[in-house]
């Protein structure tokens, strides 16, 4: 599972903070309690010393009951045992006001009043442990919440700022296409690593574009250079067949040669066309009437269909005008026609439907669906029995891509269907 860089850093920070705070919570509780108890010890001893120093010297036995009444947290009790030492202990008492047990820290100290031994009992009301824990938890919660929101906001702001050049680069690369001439341009950043990254990517892209371009040019040049020898080949055959001495057998050979040159010519034309489309050598701002093109080519393809008793049905009611390249659109349509006719079974039918949204060519064909993975690959012959050069569908796909249209193939009820969506 992948997640964003930001959330990943943030997660580590948060985890660390939470662990630290949770581990420290009992320690914090322990220290707070110790400190508090020490303090209450001191308070009790201080009060005892005060009593011994200020009150005791003038204390009479008759004063005890009054003193006991006035002082809330101190009592003088008759002592039975004669203990010499102070004793400190804890004791809970039910409080009628708060309606719960209140913990007390108690100091019992032996005193002498008019020669008789008494015990001075002083007490300090302690915070309940429950209250202490509750308060600590509350405090911790507030700290954690503040810390986390703080961390989140700071990390987010910092990271967004720090990683901005990186996301810029990322966006540029995502939009980059090797076969388009638009090369990404990175703006210099103030961070060394990102500058390095940008430089390296620029170099990589530049190198690859260069290689791609020279490959493309090579195909185009090769195809161009082949035109002249092909022309010589063609013209030599055209001249040779004028010789009246040629026999029937020789004509048979010449027919084969002639068919080969036709295939060679077509192959070369297709390669040239593909490389020209790759090289963006076609203007795309022409007004093109699809109905007209389909209708005009119908004549020619009806001739073809007739020879194999294939019926062509067409539904061209809607008038479809597109802004694209006229020549390429003609090539697209003729390739769709040809592809459909070539793969239609004898006595089958071919239907064409044109709407504002799409153009559909469907034909009755073999009972198996075509291999959709290889469909548009160059030179992948799906049906080895045909003499096609395996470039027809690649050309269709190229033109569709060039126009940012889409093409879908489906196979239903023995109907092979190609749909071009505009």
């Amino acid at each position, binding site marked *: 599972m992948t997640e964003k860089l930001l959330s990943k850093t943030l997660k580590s920070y948060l985890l660390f903070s939470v662990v630290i705070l949770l581990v420290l919570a009992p320690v914090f509780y322990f220290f707070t309690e110790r400190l508090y108890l020490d303090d209450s010890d001191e308070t009790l001893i201080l009060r005892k010393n005060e009593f011994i120093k200020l009150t005791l010297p003038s204390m009479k036995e008759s004063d005890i009951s009054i003193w006991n009444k006035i002082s809330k947290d101190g009592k003088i009790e008759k002592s039975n045992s004669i203990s010499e030492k102070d004793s400190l202990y804890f004791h809970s008492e039910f409080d009628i006001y708060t309606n719960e047990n209140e913990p007390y820290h108690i100091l019992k100290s032996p005193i002498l009043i008019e020669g008789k031994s008494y015990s001075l009992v002083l007490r300090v009301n302690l915070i309940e442990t429950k209250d202490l824990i509750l308060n600590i938890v509350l405090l911790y919660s507030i700290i954690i919440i503040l810390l986390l929101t703080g961390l989140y906001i700071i990390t987010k702001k910092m990271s967004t700022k720090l990683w901005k050049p990186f996301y810029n680069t990322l966006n540029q690369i995502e939009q980059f296409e090797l076969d388009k001439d638009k090369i990404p341009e990175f703006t210099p950043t103030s961070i060394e690593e990102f500058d390095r990254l940008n430089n390296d990517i620029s170099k990589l892209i530049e190198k690859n574009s260069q290689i791609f371009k020279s490959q493309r040019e090579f195909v185009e040049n090769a195809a161009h250079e082949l035109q*002249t020898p092909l022309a010589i080949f063609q013209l030599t055959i055209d001249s040779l067949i*004028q010789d009246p001495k040629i026999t029937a057998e020789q004509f048979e050979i010449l027919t084969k040669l002639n068919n080969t040159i036709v295939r060679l010519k077509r192959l070369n034309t297709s390669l040239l066309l593909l490389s020209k489309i790759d090289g963006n050598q076609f203007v795309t701002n022409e007004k093109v009437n699809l109905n007209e093109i389909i209708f005009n080519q119908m004549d020619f393809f009806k001739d073809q269909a007739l020879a194999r008793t294939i019926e062509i049905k067409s539904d061209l009611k809607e008038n479809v005008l597109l802004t694209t390249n006229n020549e390429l659109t003609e090539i697209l349509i003729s390739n769709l026609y040809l592809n459909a006719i070539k793969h239609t079974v004898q006595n089958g039918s071919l239907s064409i439907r044109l709407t504002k949204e799409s153009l559909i060519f469907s034909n009755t064909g073999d009972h198996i669906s075509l291999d959709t993975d290889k469909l548009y690959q160059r030179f992948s012959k799906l049906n080895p029995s045909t003499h096609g050069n395996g470039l027809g569908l690649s050309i269709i796909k190229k033109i569709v891509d060039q126009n940012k249209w889409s093409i879908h193939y489906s196979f239903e009820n023995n109907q092979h269907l190609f749909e071009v969506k505009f």
Partner: protein
Amino acid sequence: MKILIIEDEIQLAESIQGYLKSNDFVIELASTIEIASEKIELYSYDCILLDLMLPDGNGFEILKKLQQLNKTSGVIILSAKETLETKIEGFNFGADDYLTKPFHLSELLVRIQALIRRKNFQGNNILTFEEINIDLQSKSVKVNNILIDTTKKEFELLLFLIGNKNKVLSKGSIAEHLSGDLADMLDNHDFIYAHIKNLKKKLNEASCRDYIKTVYGFGYKWQND
């Protein structure tokens, strides 16, 4: 009729020369701009076949020279390059037609004939072959003065056959002439058989002699004997 072929591929030029020779054309060859320039300065040609990529420069220079010299020769560019820009540039410099290599000799021949007709016989648009009269303007055909009804394809086919009389034409070259680039895509050119058959039938019905001969499985020939 005088024709100058400016082409550095000797084999190509010779094939063209061989094919055109039998059609009462006088043909001269030039393989460089230098030789060609000299020739167009000295002589007048009815038609010039011009290759664009020549060893000593671009064929457009010849077009400019022709304009300077005020020569009215028709020019057909023969080029391996088929971009819209070169075509437009060619026409702007005064070329009359543009054929992309590879092409068929039969196609070249009818293009030359059409060009010369346009240049020389303005107003006279009747082509006659024995008992056949073809009106190029109204695109109508008369056999023994009887008008026969031909389709557009049949009319073009007839012109193509007569233009290439006594020449063997491959089915492919006929298909290409009738259907242009579309024919290029097909393996099977048998569809032209239907057009030939229909044309033959119509000519026969007007008691025209049978000039169209089948050449084995290869193609057809318009023969007048």
